[in-house]
Each structure stands twice: as structure tokens, then as C-alpha cells.
């Protein structure tokens, strides 16, 4: 069923309480968003428009204040925290702008830990799969180095390998190319997009890099408004 939407967002509102105050701010107000299986979507918008918040809600890291979020048939807004942890482990791969690698572990271990925590990949296959993923991303000779010994570009490639480790159906990336060089930018982007093309996965990338947009199937723009603080518009990629 390639044309059925795999991510469905309806009337999503996420508010945050201001620290030390009873007042709340609206961080995200998204009336509708649908993403089909195998689709690649770029999320753009000015800083503070809710791009990261949207990805965190879809990942189950944040709960919606209002509205519905259905991913692969799972209404994650109805799940309790344990169920959302399980859902995230099995369904979501997340690439961060700040890489967010575990500093005490080598590149290989960082990839492997993602599998050890989620128990999706059989234990005996995890080490070999970690090696293969890193080798495919050009890190065959650097897999035993710790994050502190890797360049920014290398760290981001480890981050991509880690996001792909459990073969998730949805790959979310928050500014994945913001802190890396041109060569890594291409490697990272290609690695993500090829997952959608060959394996039918959803790839959603929040970015400020307009140069990337033509590579995506769709671009979703989150925009602040003076009347309605946040709104979403759709553009063709």
C-alpha cells in the first residue's frame, strides 16, 4: 500500500510552560500533515518555528498538547511512556544536528549500542551490521575511534549509521548537514535519501539549507504568523 499515508498529523498543537511562570507559549500549531511511505520531506522554516518540536513529537520524545499523531498505524498520542519508548526503538531513527554521540564509546560501539538497547536486530548480527554501516559511510578505518577523535563530518556519519542501525521505518534528521563539510553533506544526504528510494522508508529532514530542497519529494514550510503564531504551508520540491 505505497500510497497510504504512514505519518498522519491532525490539529497538532504543542505548548510549553515558561519556566517559573504559569504562562504557556505555543511552539507548534500544525493543522495537517501527511507523509506517505517512501516519501522524503524537508521541513523548513525560521528558527523557533517548531521544526525540532515537530520531529520530537513524531519521535515520541514529546507528547502533543492537542491533536493526533499516527505513525505507521500507531496513534502515538495515545501511548503511555513505555509504549512510546518501544515505538521509538522499533520505528524511529534520529539524526541530530549536534551528532549526540556517546563520548565514552567508539564509533562502532555507538552504532552497536543503539541495537543493544532496542533488541530489534539479533544479538549475533549486531557487531557485523555496525561494521557494515560504518564502512558504507566511509568510516571503515575510523570505527574504533571515540567521538572526540573524529572530525565533525565523521561524527555525523556515525550518527547516520546509528540512526539506520535498527532499520527504522521513519528516519528523522534535525539539521543533519548544518555542522559538516560539503563532502559529508553529500554522504549524509545520499545515505538518508537512498533509504527512502530503495527501502521505502519515510525520511523527514528539518533544515535551513535551501540547497538541499530540490533533492526532496516535498518541502513543508513552517511559518510564524503575527495573528496565528505558527502555520504550515506546502510547496513542491
Amino acid at each position, binding site marked *: 500500500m505505497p500510497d497510504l499515508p504512514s505519518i498522519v498529523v491532525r490539529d497538532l498543537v504543542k505548548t510549553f510552560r515558561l519556566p517559573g511562570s504559569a504562562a504557556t507559549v505555543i511552539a507548534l500549531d500544525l493543522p495537517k500533515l501527511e507523509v506517505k511511505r517512501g516519501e522524503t520531506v524537508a521541513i523548513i522554516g525560521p528558527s523557533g518555528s517548531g521544526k525540532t518540536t515537530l520531529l520530537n513529537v513524531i519521535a515520541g520524545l514529546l507528547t502533543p498538547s492537542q491533536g493526533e499523531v499516527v505513525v505507521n498505524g500507531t496513534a502515538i498520542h495515545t501511548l503511555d511512556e513505555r509504549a512510546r519508548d518501544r515505538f521509538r526503538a522499533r520505528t524511529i531513527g*534520529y539524526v541530530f544536528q549536534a551528532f549526540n554521540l*556517546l563520548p*565514552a*564509546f567508539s564509533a562502532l560501539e555507538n552504532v552497536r*549500542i543503539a541495537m543493544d538497547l532496542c533488541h530489534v536486530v539479533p544479538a549475533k548480527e549486531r557487531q557485523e551490521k555496525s561494521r557494515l554501516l560504518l564502512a558504507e559511510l566511509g568510516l571503515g578505518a575510523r570505527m574504533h575511534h571515540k567521538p572526540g577523535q573524529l572530525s565533525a563530518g565523521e561524527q555525523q556519519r556515525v550518527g547516520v549509521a546509528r540512526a539506520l542501525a535498527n532499520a527504522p521505518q521513519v528516519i528523522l534528521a534535525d539539521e543533519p548537514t548544518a555542522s559538516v563539510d560539503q563532502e559529508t553533506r553529500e554522504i549524509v544526504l545520499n545515505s538518508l535519501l537512498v533509504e527512502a528510494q530503495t527501502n521505502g522508508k519515510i525520511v523527514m529532514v528539518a533544515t535551513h539549507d535551501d540547497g538541499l530542497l530540490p533533492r526532496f519529494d516535498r518541502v513543508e514550510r513552517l511559518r510564524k504568523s503575527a495573528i496565528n503564531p505558527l502555520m504550515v504551508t506546502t510547496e513542491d520540491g
Partner: protein
Amino acid sequence: MAELRIAWSNLLFRPVLTIVAAAILGVAVALAIAVLLLSRAMEDGLVRASRPFDLLVGAKGSPTQLIMSTILLQDAPVGNIPFHYFETLRRDPRVAHAVPLAMGDNVHGFRIVGVGPEFFRLTDPASQQPYFAVAAGRACKSTFEAVLGAQVSAIWRMGLHGTFQSQHGLLEGVPGSAHQATYTIVGMLKPSDTPLDRAIFVPLDSYWEVHDATAREITVAMVRPVGIKEFYQLYQEINQGTVAQAVLTGQGMARLFDLLDQGQAILTKVCYLALIMGAATVFLVSYAVGAQRRRETAILRALGAGRWSVFVIGLAEPLITAAWGTMLGVVAGHVAAWSIASRLHDASAIAIRPTFMVEELMVAGAVLLLSAAAGLLPAIESYRQDVATNLAPV
């Protein structure tokens, strides 16, 4: 288990903090173990040292001083009692045997003890083995023959047929205190695990002769009554008299243990304090890495780890640190106890043998519990922390 592997690697990633925390905890555990082992071993050693002495009869004065000077060879003797008083006692049908000891001379700081021939025939009622068995040569019989205690022969390196002159008093090298008579070594004793291993034994006659004594006296008599009833009868009768005092060795040692217990109680409090400080260090280390931990916890949660997983990791780190500190402390505590015991043995000849005690497990358990308590708050923070906030770029 991935959580334990992560905790282990996190600790290795910050070796200085981990080593400092484990070392402080280790010192606290070592202190507690050493105090525990030594206090028990010391009591055992003192009990072993006092075995040959059932009832001590000596001059009126301090009972503790009589025990200290006779059994531990510390302190000066209380005084002397007439030999005829001892002979009356020996002939008493309620006495199984009585052995006279005369003290007051030394050679190179080793006390010279004048003894009757019965001394070498004293046996342990349980094993029937002699307390003071000859290892080489023979027991002294004639005037100016001498037998060396086991430690004296080892330290002094004087062999059979060697000769020496004694000095009056208990201190070595006091000018003008040397006696003219020359002793010849005719035997050396096996270790008895008592301070008498640091003594030199000579016949009582020799003792009187070098002192040119007109009235024959002894310092103390080791008395073994025939039974319990006789034991207490003699004790009461002697103490009601005006010549001598009788001291129940067991009762005297119990008094000594009470004194030791007072010191041990203070040391125990110091140990508790050290253990609490060790746990406080673990707590501080857990908090010192708080910012880094919050980010790591958020990453793990984003990867799919549940709240309990990050709680387990947060708790495992102080527990692993505590386990390392405890292992280090147990080993160091045993080494320290053996080292101190060896020095005490060299100084006093009391055999102090620290051995593994069940209480050590209680110390280890207490350390782990304290460390778990210290790590609980940071672990709860990990459990409760907001994920998304801590994933943002710094």
C-alpha cells in the same frame, strides 16, 4: 546487559574521578577491615598468650600490672613474694601444680625469667602439648644455664653454648647494672605464641645467686588448681591474706579487652565517618558529571532506552565504583592488618593472625548500600529528566 556495559564504559571514560572516588572509598573500607581484623586477632592473640596462666599469685598491688608484667612482659613487676609462701601454696592439695617465676633482669632488653623446672613441663590440658617445648638443646637445670625463647634466638642470633651476662632492671644498657655471673645457653624453645617467646629462662637458683639474695623471693607464681571449686577457694583465701594477691587471668584479660574495646569503639566511629565520607564522594562525583550525564541520558532515551534503563545505568555507576573501592579496600585492609600484626608480633611476641571474617561481608554490604543511596538521587534525576531539552545543541 547493555546498561551495565554503558555504566562500565562511562566510568572508564572519566578515570580520574572514578579512581579518586574508588580510592577514597577503598581507604575507608581498608580502615574498617583493618580495625575489624586487628581487634579480633588481637583478642585471639591475647587469649592464646594467656592460656598457660590460670591463676597468677604475686605481690599485693595492681592486678592489671601483674597481668601486664607477667603475661605480656610489659610494665614493671608489682613486687616480690617470699619463696616459702609459694612452697606452702605448692603443697596445698587444692593445687595441681604451681610454677615460680622471678623477674627483674634483662640482657639486650630481653627479660630474664627465673623459673622452676616445672615450667618446661607445663602442658595445655586440651592438647596435652607442652606450652614451652624445647626446639634445640635441653631445658636449663644447673646454675647459670639459660634457655632462649623462640624470638630471642631469632633476633639475637645467639646459638647453643653462647654466653652472656645479665643486667639488673628491665632496661637495656643502664651503666653499672651488669651482673658478674656468666650464663651459658643450653637450649632454645619452640614458638609458644606468647610474649614469653621474647624472654630468656634461667633456673631460679641462678636468679637468687646473681642478686646475692639473703631472703629468697619470687615475682609471681603460675598456679593451676585441681578444679573450679578449688580455683575460687584459693582465689578468695589468697586475696583475704596480707602477703599476696591472686588474679584470675580470664577476668583480668576481660578487663583488658574492655579497655581495648573503648579504643576500638572510637576507631569504629572513625571508620563509620570514613565510610560516610566515601559515600559522599561517590555522591559528589555522580553530581559532578551531571551535565554530561543529562545529555547522555537524553541520547539513550532518544535511541529507545526506557526510563528504567537510564535509572539502572545511573545507579550502576556508583555501585560499580563502590565495588571497585570495596575490593581495593578489602585487599588493602588485609595487607595493612597483616603488616601491623607482624610489627606487633615483632614487638610483643603475641601471635596476631588476622583472618577472613564474616563481618567483612557486612562492611562490603554496607558500603554498597551507602553508595547505592548516594547514587539514588542522580539516578532518579536521570529517570525523571526531560529528553528533548537535553538533546538540543549546546
